[in-house]
């Protein structure tokens, strides 16, 4: 446990939102409780972006813990796809969701969406180095390698 009085350091999943926001037609479904939606204001207020970042939060509540947060995730994933129709979906856990171990990546594979789904895992940061900024980098690496793979496997080659 570490006492933090003042912090400008965001949690790593903000990095995932940043990746999604930096690309066209990518939408992130973030498994997170309702308070985590504050991340929107980092983009819309602090950076004065004219759009909400492309993220849908599952906003699970205590009553869902007793029932099924995994089901909540799948419903949110489908609703987010239906509403935003992205070309690629990124899925990730917030720090609370990580404790639930629903594994959104594995769940999303079973959802049968017609677009590629990339599960984002951030490399666990060694405790000594928690002073580092949020981690968009690993998301970016994961995403670009998956896109590259998909380009060869499933996208028709354009000559």
């Amino acid at each position: 446990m570490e006492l933090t009085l003042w912090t400008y350091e965001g949690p790593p999943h903000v990095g995932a939102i940043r990746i999604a926001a930096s690309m066209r037609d990518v939408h992130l479904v973030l498994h997170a409780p309702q308070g985590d939606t504050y991340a929107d204001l980092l983009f819309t207020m602090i950076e004065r972006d004219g759009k909400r970042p492309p993220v849908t939060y599952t906003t699970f509540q205590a009553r869902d813990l007793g029932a099924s947060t995994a089901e909540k995730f799948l419903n949110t994933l489908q609703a987010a796809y239906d509403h935003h129709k992205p070309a690629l979906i990124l899925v990730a856990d917030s720090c609370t969701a990580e404790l639930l171990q629903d594994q959104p990546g594995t769940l999303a594979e079973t959802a049968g969406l017609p677009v590629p789904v990339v599960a984002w895992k951030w490399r666990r940061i060694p405790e000594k180095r928690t002073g580092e900024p949020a981690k968009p980098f690993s998301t970016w690496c994961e995403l670009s390698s998956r896109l590259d793979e998909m380009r060869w496997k499933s996208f028709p080659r354009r000559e």
Partner: protein
Amino acid sequence: MTADVIAVSTQPVERFQPVQERGQRAVFCGLTSIIWLHRKIQDAFFLVVGSRTCAHLIQSAAGVMIFAEPRFGTAVLGDRDLAGMADCHDELDRVVAQVLERRPELKSIFLVGSCPSEVIKLDLDNAAGRLSREYDGQVRFVAYSGSGIETTFTQGEDNCLASLAADLPSDTREESRLLVVGTVPDIVEDQFRRLFSQMGIEGVDFFPGSQSTDLPSIGKNTRLLLAQPFLGETLRALESHGATLLPAPFPLGAEGSNAWFRSAADAFGVTAQVQDSVLTPPRLRAEAALGKYRDELAGKSFTMLPDSQLEIPLARFLARECGMTPREVGTPFFDARVMEAEVPLLPSEVDWVEGQDLDPALDRVRAARPDLTVCGLGIANPLEAEGLRTKWSIELLFTPIQGFEQAGDLAELFARPLRREQALEVGSWS
């Protein structure tokens, strides 16, 4: 008054049924209440036991509003705590000692539960009891949940006050005493105290007060007036000590304030004559102040997205006293007991919503294009960029808005964004 032209739903509270929505929510969690609670309770520290996200949320929501070293912080759970490799209670003791070393003058520490502390089932009630014994009455420890899985935004204050209410000293006095419940700015507290005193109601207690050591006593002769509309749990905790609620609309606007004061005055046997002589001058002043804004606001439509729990009384105020037209009014949850005196005053033909499903709600705002949308911080700028005018609901918690003297300021908060529309060429900035 404009009340004459507005269709009022005279329905009793049992028949008031907002549409339920259960989808993506865009609200802060209860941790956010710490921002105004720590300002009000000046000898207390709020220690969140949570994650880096929790620390960052409070920082981001408090934004530029706090300059000095704040009396709140986060004990960030590390991997070892989460994996059960460290004893969280030992760790907490160490962090608490660190806080007290920096701030030896503290009289109370609130241990605030978060989603991660609740998911790993860290028992903060237990920790509060243990620490209170260890610090032997020098420092009081109180635990409550501000987590996003249990609370939205202002519910954090409700949980905080409910846990404080659990061990208020008991009042065995025979005469009735008035207790005003809910955080209001000091300036509002002073005005309220003055008006009560002019009507002969003395010794009014405010909960919370500015010192955590100065807690009101409570018993069967305590009469409660709610100053904020999000305190259902606190109300139930106070009632369990035998206190009784004085039913009243909330003290927002001239009408709400008037009814609120009169509810207390009736209960304390203040004659109609005295009530009139004390309350009429400030009510007339409030109505005059409101009159200045009514021309700007009358006929304008608004939508409120669910956020602060203030939505229902504010919609009542804007419709009845400013002549505005509510389109859709959402509230995170609807507590019938707390809203009992508000519901009969509400305009009809409004889409009332409880809960939220963000994307469809935003689509409805885009389709209706109300003149003003009251919403959370994360949503406002994107709507502005689409040419809609917005008001941040969090401002309603940071600005003194209760009582007669603030009625004009309250209307001005809603008039300002509309005026900006006239002053600026719409859509010219983004």
